[in-house]
């Protein structure tokens, strides 16, 4: 396992230049996520219509893994239903903990290397846990602990 397997070009690119970053004024769901381990915080904004994610943005600071994961998640989730997101969440969780794809994960497959660094799974899944909480409209903030 080389460091390049973990820090692939696309992860570094999305970590440095995250897509869908910022506040979404049309949001009808939002949620704050914490990783108490490192103090990272993310805020997710979702505009949902008839159970479909029409638009999504996030704010926050974090490590390359967590920011890239948030960025790529927002890209892959637009247009998906809640049910489709939940399925993707499970597949992504399998990917970052087991290191292999249950189904074709597309771009998200670059996170497979995270499984070699179990402590970083929380970084890779923070945005995902936060989105899950946002969509079920839990009013509390969530944490990965």
């Amino acid at each position, binding site marked *: 396992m080389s460091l390049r397997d973990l820090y692939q070009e696309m992860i570094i690119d999305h970590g440095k230049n995250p897509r869908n970053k910022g506040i979404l004024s049309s949001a009808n769901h939002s949620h704050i996520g914490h990783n108490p381990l490192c*103090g*990272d915080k993310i805020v997710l904004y979702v505009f949902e219509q008839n159970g479909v994610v029409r638009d999504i943005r996030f704010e926050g*600071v974090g*490590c390359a893994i967590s920011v890239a994961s948030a960025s790529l998640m927002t890209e892959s989730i637009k247009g998906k239903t809640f049910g489709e997101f939940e399925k993707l969440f499970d597949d992504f969780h399998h990917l970052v903990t087991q290191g292999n794809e249950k189904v074709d994960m597309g771009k998200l497959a670059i996170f497979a290397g995270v499984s070699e660094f179990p402590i*970083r799974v929380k970084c890779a899944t923070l945005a995902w846990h936060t989105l899950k909480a946002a969509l079920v409209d839990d009013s509390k903030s969530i944490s990965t602990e």
Partner: protein
Amino acid sequence: MNAAIMKNNAQLNVYADFPILQQHNRGKPIIYLDSASSTQKPQQVIEAITHFYSHDYANIHRGMYELSERSTTFYEETRTAVKNFIHANHTDEIVFTHGTTDAINLIAQSYGRSTFQAGDEVILSEMEHHSNIVPWYLLKEQMGIVIKVIPVTDAGALDMDAYQQLFSRRTKLVALTHASNVTGVINPAKEITDIAHAHHVPVLFDGAQAIAHILVDVQAIDCDFYVFSGHKLYGPTGVGVLYGKQSLLEAMPPYQGGGGMIETVSFSKTTFASSPQKFEAGTPPIASVIGLQAALQYVNAIGIENIFSHDQFLLNNVEHRFADISGLRIIGLAKPKLGVISFVLDDVHPHDVSTVLDHEGIAIRAGHHCAMPLMERFRIPATARISFGVYNTQQDIDAVVNAIQLAKRLLT
């Protein structure tokens, strides 16, 4: 200890005493730079615990038989060793706890709850570890005390002028860290105590970090309480120390009830043993206490002054080398400080720094170090932290510098 422990330039040469360091981390020789979190254990401590369990173990203060007498003797010898190590006046001033956190909670729940009233004030600082914040926060919830906070300067030192302004007629305790677990900055313990005593306020020092690096003399400092953990001092986990002035400990009610801390028990009336037994309810971590004794012997054999020189040699070396790394900023440059260095890198998150270093065999800590208020103070979410033990060398610093350069190449 013989001259072989000292290399040139004040460096210690005791790496070989630590079996855990004679192996690999991710396929590379381990470079352990997280001693502020917990130190590794020398063979002497490991052997002392094994020997104790193999030859001398029984419950203490209980059995009318030889093993128990022997076990009790070793346990109480450790109390004397601790007394000598921190230059306390009397062994009765040494209470064994489960660690620093346990000791601070003991003081809050016993001393605090029995002497504070709603509206009374406790002075803390922005550089405290959560273990010296949350126990006082719990008291605030339980009895309405007020927490006052000494600000920290840009250099990471306590603002001593602000400190003096925080006293009022309601101030009942000053509880501060002796040295920051984030920046390594050492607080002026004697000056802090003198100021508090001028206001007739007792002082508690959290010595979790300082104890493994500098000579601690509780009588010279004149502090009222001093607490630390065994596991940051080359000893085992599960044992810590509460030093308290005898008059204070005697007046304090028990913290936990149970066996070993009583004189007589009936359902209508229980009377308590005197300090320190009063605070040691239940069977203590006996073997860990024995291990602590071995750790103190180990540190004494090297000499705490030699450890401090070694620490300062490495610290100066790091500061010098880090100055050449562009985009690297050390958090807290105030002196004096321990060999604990927190830093941030432009455009590379501390977690990523830590992962790259880990890949190179180097163990450091990244995060908020259980000091969220200090992170807030410096407006950073986290830092990467390296911290030294007796086993570290100048070569370790070379490896760190190379790995930081690698992280920068890879991630920016």
